């Protein structure tokens, strides 16, 4: 399967995780990790699975590298019907009310444009005891499994 791991990051944690996920899936799939700042929403493709990895900044906002992408989703309103994505969020429970606000916003924007979310949105906690990759690898496998059944079916 063709997989793009798209990451939105401010201090690089999401980037490192995205690259780890890509490395983990590489053996069996065509995988590329791409910064959301380098990805044009016009290039979404129904035959590719998108794994989004995104952190949270400021007061529950998107991290810097995801902001131009989010702005384009809003201003250009691309039609993402048929596009499948899973989303792994990063945040810190110290920021109570705004915990994982960034990925929440990102998922909502994708869905509003017609994209379909596979699986639950995961919310990693930087103040928790779990290593991000320990949760993310099984999550990625699970989403890929779900995508196996959906992506390609239409084609």
């Amino acid at each position, binding site marked *: 399967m063709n997989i793009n791991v798209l990451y939105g990051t401010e201090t690089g944690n999401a980037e490192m995780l995205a690259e780890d996920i890509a490395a983990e899936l590489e053996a069996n799939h065509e995988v590329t990790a791409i910064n959301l700042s380098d990805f044009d929403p016009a290039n979404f493709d129904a035959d590719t699975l998108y794994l989004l990895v995104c952190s949270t900044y400021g007061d529950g906002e998107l991290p*810097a590298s995801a902001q131009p992408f989010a702005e384009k989703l809003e201003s250009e309103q691309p039609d993402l019907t048929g596009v499948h994505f899973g989303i792994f969020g990063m945040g810190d429970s110290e920021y109570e009310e705004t915990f994982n606000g960034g990925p929440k916003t990102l998922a909502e924007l994708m869905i509003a444009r017609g994209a379909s979310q596979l699986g639950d949105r995961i919310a990693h906690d930087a103040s928790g005891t779990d290593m991000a990759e320990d949760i993310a690898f099984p999550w990625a496998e699970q989403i890929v499994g779900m995508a196996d059944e959906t992506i390609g079916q239409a084609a």
Partner: protein
Amino acid sequence: MTGQIAIIGAGPSGCFLAQALLKSDPALQVDLIDRLPVPYGLVRYGVAADHQGTKAVSRQFARLFERQGARFFGNVSIGSDVTLDDLRGAYDAVVLAAGLSADRALAVPGGDLGGVFGAGKLTRALYEHPEAEALPQLGPRPLIVGNGNVAIDLLRLLAKTPEELEGSDLGHSPTDWLAASGIEEITITGRSPAAAAKFDTVMIKELGKLGGVTIRVLGAGETDDPQARKKLEALAALEEGEGPRRITFRFGLTPIAVEGDSRAEAVRFASDAGEEVLPCSSVLTAIGFDAPGDLPRDLLLAEESEGKLAEGLYATGWFRRGPRGTIPDNRADAKELAERILTEIAPDTTKTGAALLGALPDTTDYSGWSRIDNAETANPPPGRCRVKITTREDMLRLAREEETQ
């Protein structure tokens, strides 16, 4: 080999720079040198003990040494153990990422009285930096001068109850010191009006979680700017607690003198309404940082342009930009500089690189730091995630220990 680069300082700026360099060119030899036996700079000794999530960025930095081929040379002070010129002679490029560790002085009459403490000094003592002085007596009514995030960090830690420090890496003696501080009231003062204060809104919101305090906000004023309004709203929302410790925010106060016989007893301020004297039992200054003087920063930066100081010599992070900006800002800065270095570097195979450092006694390497790190995190007491090794001697001893089979 495509070149050898020495980075002075293994704080976030140095580490992000090494990361960006090695990502573009994995064949580079990148050596991170730090005067402490342990890496990560202010991530370890500045970021608050109760902000462990922020410290998690060091997992990325560990990668540098574990997988990307960067090397760590700890306990090497550039300027005394090795001169900057010798280092430049041994490497194709040298980057100053040494931060700014000295507290900017409160330059008013009485600013040097007893009982006036800089935030850098105080946080180093709280976080058990190996060169820290003993934690001082603050008395029942410390007054904080400054309105940046560092000032808010200090305020929050001083105001926390022992239970609120659960999960942190605050050490045993600082924890006892806080519990016995006898602080009744903390006043925090800023020069600007609240709307222009430097602190981030989230830092203020976090204070709303404190259980042991009653917070008053005086003279916060008003604003038309929506961003600034969030700050004022966050401040206003603080005035709800009913805890025993009193916290008072004051704005628009410029300190003009610290008063007292041998020890600070009050601070005299100028404000729009005239002069005002606020009594206190100690003064904590959080008004920025300066170079400690071990490297001639002003001279070095005299010709600086976008991170380049001279042929093969660069600077990044707080050392270059001054004491402003958070960890993400250093990342952006480091990425730009990495690109520049990569286009300019001219590898010279006669340069001997780390041979210069290999000759020094008592240096630590990454495996030595791993042993220290493991010792610190192996058996923390309840409510703590780490117990720091506090002296240089103990760090060096642990770093030298062979791993037991």
